[in-house]
């Protein structure tokens, strides 16, 4: 499913979090929203999910205007930055949640959960609680839970943000392979341009709520649209080298 975000603006009190932002994601694409903290990337992601309503502008899924549609009717998968797993449920019940609330027949739901736990390589952890898992494992549970109801769109907020460097590298490569396998249109938020460029088909660079540049990793690296983009990429290169 394609997404079309058109001139979206969102204020929190006096703070303009998103300022007339527009971008598109084609069906099956993996898009990164890249920017420093406070650039509005998470707000934009939450607007796409319906967790926030924009003050102006529209969000379309295909040709369908969903700007004011309730979150639960959008059928999107959302992976929260700190996973937001249900601590009182087992791994199995966490993944099954989206199916249970939709009253999917139990046998069918259980089969789907087993399939997903296989996909995220967590077979054998069905009866564990989130508190008993490592960060990387929780991340994969969150991903399996988001994928269980078969969403048309997968949204990930700093999916590797709270993991250590090594796990991060592994998960990054794994997410790319997973995406190539399931082909769900995906949007993820990151402040790390390495991550954005390594994983995404297309990158949307944001600063202070405004879209600075949209393009493939190669295009952005070859021709940064303005000083901010050049600077942001440049600074991060310098940091990596030192």
């Amino acid at each position: 499913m394609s997404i079309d975000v058109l001139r979206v603006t969102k204020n929190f009190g006096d703070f303009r979090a998103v300022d007339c932002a527009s971008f598109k994601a084609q069906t099956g694409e993996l898009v990164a929203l890249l920017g420093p903290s406070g650039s509005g990337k998470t707000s934009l992601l939450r607007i796409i999910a319906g967790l926030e309503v924009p003050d102006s502008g529209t969000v379309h899924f295909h040709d369908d205007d969903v700007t004011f549609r309730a979150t639960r009717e959008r059928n999107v998968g959302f992976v929260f930055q700190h996973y937001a797993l249900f601590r009182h449920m087992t791994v199995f019940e966490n993944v099954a949640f989206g199916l249970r609330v939709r009253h999917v027949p139990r046998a069918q739901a259980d089969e789907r959960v087993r399939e997903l736990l296989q996909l995220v390589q967590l077979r054998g952890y069905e009866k564990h609680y989130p508190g008993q898992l490592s960060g990387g494992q929780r991340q994969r549970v969150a991903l399996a839970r988001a994928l269980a109801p078969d969403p048309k769109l997968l949204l990930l907020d700093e999916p590797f943000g709270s993991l250590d460097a090594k796990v991060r590298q592994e998960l990054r490569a794994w997410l790319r392979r997973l995406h190539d396998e399931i082909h769900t249109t995906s949007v993820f938020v990151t402040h790390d341009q390495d991550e954005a460029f390594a994983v995404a088909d297309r990158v949307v660079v944001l600063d202070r709520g405004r879209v600075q540049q949209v393009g493939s990793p190669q295009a952005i690296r070859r021709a940064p649209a303005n000083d901010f983009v050049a600077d942001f990429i440049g600074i991060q290169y310098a940091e990596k080298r030192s």
Partner: protein
Amino acid sequence: MSATVIELYPRRSLAAGGSRVVRGILIALALGFVGLLLIAPLIAVFVEAFRKGWEVYAASIVEPDALAAIRLTLLTAAIAVPLNTFFGLAAAWAVTRFDFRGKSVLVTLIDLPFAVSPVISGLLFIQLFGARGWLGDWLRDQGLKVIFAPPGIILATLFITFPFVARELIAFMETQGREQEEAAVVLGANGWQTFFRVTLPNIKWGLLYGVILCNSRAMGEFGAVSVVSGHVRGETNTVPLHVEVLYNEYQLSSAFAVASLLTLLALGTLAARHFVERRTRGDRA
């Protein structure tokens, strides 16, 4: 290096020795204080209650007026606690999950029953529902009696015990944040499903803690209830009021016998509280 380390040992043990004395004194002081002000009166209650033997103790409790007081107290708690659990949940939900105008005023108002003296809370209900109160004439025309009757006692108890569940839950739900609920909604859960499958299991220990405190106050409240009750023996006396009546009539053993029931309730509350506190700490971590 090694010389310094060796030198440090005697000094450190000296320091520890000094603090051991100070620590001993402080612990003795604390225990003495608790013993004098808390434990001794607690023991005194039971000593006095059983002074004239088990028969008098039992007789004081099964005596009709005492039974009526126990019944009224249980009835009051049975109405006030569930209602305040419900209101407390609603208030905590509204305050921690929505942004709206007047939110800070609401949070402050929730504390009002704690801020005013219980006697004033009682007078406030007399002013509202009493024979000369604002609604007095209307109530008389309807043939309803609120003040000097069980409805007044229940209303006053509701008012006094309102903050317990709400306050406990607001603190609890604020530390938990909205993320798990948002996750549930994105996954397709409706309001009820989110509440019963995600919110409630997460707050259950905090809720239970609030309910325990609410119940202990509902059964033990004296001031506000005393003002609206009218002290009609066997009709509008709750357990705490009955204790006072007995005491004023110099029936000391009976007064302490009935008081021992409230003391047992308090001890039970403390034990339950201790248990739930440990569970909530585990949950928050």
